[in-house]
């Protein structure tokens, strides 16, 4: 081990709440340090061509003013947001093993590629022959994702994973309609991510929940009982949210297909499958991918991402509009697709994210992607093994890219998973996903990703063990965590009870 990993676990400690809590880190709201007459931009003066805008339109069309809107100089606006940034954790600065979110390194060169003027200044209504570079990039990305997933066609249209799900489900619906059947049920495992059932409802389907067995995966026999001719499809996340590869996925696909139902694979966990197993080969008819997970685009504090959908031939006609096509004149968008489910948004998808994802694929190449999944799996199993003493795995099955752990501190010391999570913050580590999947009480869902060093994983492991002992020796300390963050434990109940969702002058 290197010096770094040998070094004692470092903790950010601060004073008794009272004192450490008047931290100069707290930043007033932008509205609170605004002062009448200041401005952060200069607008080119009126050309004198004629009347001013407000006069042209006339008073009845125009608002009097933008009262309470901020008034600050450029330096003060910049300082405000730079200081706000300092109140955040981020993957680039802290270990961020948030399960199911794949917080891997976001290569900075990708952002530069997206910002190239040829992409950043390209208007979506630009005639195709003047945007061939962008269209070719889209075509290449569609092809790369088809190869990676083992599917036939890809659409980069959806804005995020959830929109990809909705897209897929609407296609499933259209597919059955076309076949003259109005199947209205979709089977979803109890371990599914919340977006799955929510998407089903929005696609007009009724959700049938399939229990995963006590080993943490789906039982083909169990599924067989659930599938009838009213079932349009089953949505399976593979590996599932227990971090377990669904061993019977192929049988399940067969069962579904046999009864005319389709298999939708939620590819949010694709970071476990690169060069390991292709959803297309498992029998998936539709897969959505999250470029902001597997393909390294920054999460941005909650997006933007991109949720491409990949499908097998029979579903291709139903893909959303517009479809890119190759003509002898070059690439163009095909607007004439009678069976398409239509659009779910404007224009051609989150192109800026597609550029980043494509840059990532170029950087790793086929072998690099395969190595990424293997190292992600290695990290998760390493953590699982080293923590098993205090934080046993919720499943006996091998873990893929993430592991779901439980603990007995609730019983032993009345220390909850939430409190463990908050305590981690004091060590400069972002907590794992907690209380998910719902089937595991007090779950800790840990996804280290392949871009974190062994020393970083070791430090996390040592910190978790330390917190475990601390829970027994000094539980108060944990209940009072975090102590090192700009604010102490935030009262979320209060926030929901009396919602204050905007600033108003009176609130000062």
């Amino acid at each position: 081990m290197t010096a770094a990993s040998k070094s004692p676990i470092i903790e950010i400690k601060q004073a008794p709440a009272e004192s450490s809590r008047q931290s100069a880190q707290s930043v007033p709201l932008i509205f609170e340090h605004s002062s009448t007459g200041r401005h952060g931009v200069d607008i080119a003066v009126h050309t004198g061509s004629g009347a001013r805008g407000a006069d042209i339109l006339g008073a009845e069309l125009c608002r009097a003013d933008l009262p309470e809107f901020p008034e600050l100089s450029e330096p003060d606006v910049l300082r405000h947001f730079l200081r706000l940034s300092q109140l955040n954790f981020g993957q680039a600065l802290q270990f961020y093993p948030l399960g199911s979110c794949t917080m891997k390194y976001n290569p900075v060169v990708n952002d530069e590629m997206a910002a190239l003027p040829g992409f950043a200044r390209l208007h979506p209504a630009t005639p195709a022959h003047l945007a061939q570079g962008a269209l070719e990039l889209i075509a290449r990305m569609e092809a790369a994702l088809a190869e990676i997933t083992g599917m036939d066609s890809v659409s980069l249209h959806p804005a995020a994973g959830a929109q990809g799900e909705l897209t897929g489900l609407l296609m499933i619906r259209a597919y059955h309609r076309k076949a003259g059947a109005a199947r209205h049920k979709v089977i979803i495992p109890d371990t599914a991510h919340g977006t799955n059932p929510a998407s089903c409802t929005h696609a007009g389907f009724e959700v049938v929940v399939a229990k995963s067995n006590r080993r943490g995966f789906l039982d083909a026999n169990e599924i067989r009982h659930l599938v009838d001719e009213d079932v349009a499809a089953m949505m399976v996340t593979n590996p599932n949210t227990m971090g377990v590869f669904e061993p019977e996925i192929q049988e399940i696909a067969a069962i579904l297909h046999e009864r005319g139902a389709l298999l939708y694979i939620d590819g949010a966990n694709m970071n476990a499958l690169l060069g390991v197993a292709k959803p297309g080969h498992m029998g998936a008819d539709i897969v959505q991918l999250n470029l902001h997970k597997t393909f390294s685009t920054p999460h941005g504090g909650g997006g933007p991402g991109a949720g491409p959908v990949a499908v097998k031939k029979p579903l291709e006609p139903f893909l959303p509009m517009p479809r890119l096509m190759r003509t002898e004149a070059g690439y163009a968008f095909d607007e004439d697709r009678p069976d398409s489910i239509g659009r779910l948004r404007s224009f051609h998808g989150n192109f800026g994210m597609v550029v980043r994802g494509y840059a990532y694929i170029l950087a790793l190449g086929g072998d690099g992607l395969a190595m990424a999944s293997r190292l992600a799996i290695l990290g998760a199993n390493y953590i699982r093994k080293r923590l098993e003493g205090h934080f046993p795995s919720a499943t006996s099955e091998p873990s893929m890219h993430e592991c779901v752990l439980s603990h007995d501190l609730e019983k032993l010391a009345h220390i909850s998973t939430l409190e463990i999570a908050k305590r981690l913050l004091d060590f400069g580590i972002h907590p794992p996903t907690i209380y998910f999947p719902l089937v595991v009480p007090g779950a800790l869902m840990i996804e280290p990703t392949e871009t974190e060093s062994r020393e970083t994983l070791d430090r996390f492991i040592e910190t978790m063990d330390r917190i475990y002992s601390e829970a027994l020796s000094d539980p108060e300390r944990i209940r009072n965590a975090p102590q090192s963050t700009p604010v102490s434990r935030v009262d979320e109940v209060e926030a929901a009870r009396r919602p204050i969702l905007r600033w108003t002058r009176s609130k000062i």
Partner: protein
Amino acid sequence: MRYMPQTEADIAAMLAVTGKHHLDDLIAHVPANLRKTAAINLDPGRTEEALTVEISSLAACNAGASSYTSFLGAGYYRHFIPAAVRAVTARAEFATSYTPYQAEASQGTTQAIFEFQTLIAQLTGLEVANAGMYDGASAAAEAVLMARRLLPKRSVVALSRAVWPDYRATIRTYLSALDGIEIVEVPFDDKTGATDIGALSKIAGDRLLCTVAGYPNAFGVIEPLGTISDITRRAGAITISVTAEGLALGLLRAPGELGVDIAVGEGQSFGLPLQFGGPGLGFMAGRMAHIRQMPGRLIGQTRDRDGRRAFTLTLATREQHIRRERATSNICTNHSLCALAATVYLSLMGRHGLRELAERNVELAHQAAATLESAGIHRRFSGPFFNEFVVNVQNGTAAIDAAERRQILAGVALNHDYPELKDAIAVAVTEMNHPEEFPRLAAALAEAAR
């Protein structure tokens, strides 16, 4: 590979802990037939230099991005973006953080989004705004779904034909799965280009769920939103305004002032690059009374244990991760970093700057229209407009090609989406256009028209 730290030694040591010998032992339980065929047939990885060269060469093949004078709009607008916006969104603390589930480690994001919600509420003149949606079109669709939750018994959606085609298509897709909803397209007044009030009145009965109108609309025309919302309210229904050019809200009367219940739109004009159409930023504002039916994330103000003001995600019981199939929306990842960019942009523009810029857009657009007029190219509609307007040009598409030969992107032909507007072109004019460009545009179009 440069992004992955594990060395041979690390791998060996970690494998030892897991009791395995080879990396592939870790996936031995994955069915063999799947593993056998899993190899990814793509080029080997590239150095940073090589990928930069390759992608830069693709970026260089988009002449439309640089070497043309542009009047393209139709839902996405060319505006100047101050460098300070990029300086903030480039901060790793913002760019590489996840949705702020852990409030104590996310006060930067949560406070910025709280400020965003406030700015959108102020702009729209409504009580409350959410943390943002994917884009204007999906926000419009979510608004209709929200209306439906508010008035479950009602079925008719009066959708103005003068709302952007993309938006209308998106609304249709989102509603396609819901039974018992009927979308009635409200025609536009052939003269003014505004929604046909008479037609709307006819539709406005007790089955009316909501009215959806552009503000400004797809023709750049400023709809009589007050009248539209009066009619809608009288029918006991919900008025939804849809704004693609957010800048207009800096000058036009606020939707909230005009009786709108839900104001949605596209925030791309607020500091986001064109980026070939995405990522953009959907915004949504409404009434506090409707908050529990609002989709999307919400940041609320609260206190920490020591009484200090703090911000956190709130009212999550509306959301998929809690409510699952009964959630108001399936949205999870939204466009947070875009909302941050908009927050910085609007803070820089400020109370006066935003209005001045809006006024300048109006002024330039009208100057351009006048220049075209005097060249014999007439506006198709008489309604008041903001920074985009529709002109009629003999064989419009040919005219567009002619202009292109003169390095001008004259605008967007409407004939594809509006067959009834055969020779119509939507021309957008922003502060990025300079008055000298107007005569060139006029000359190009006039010639083609001859």
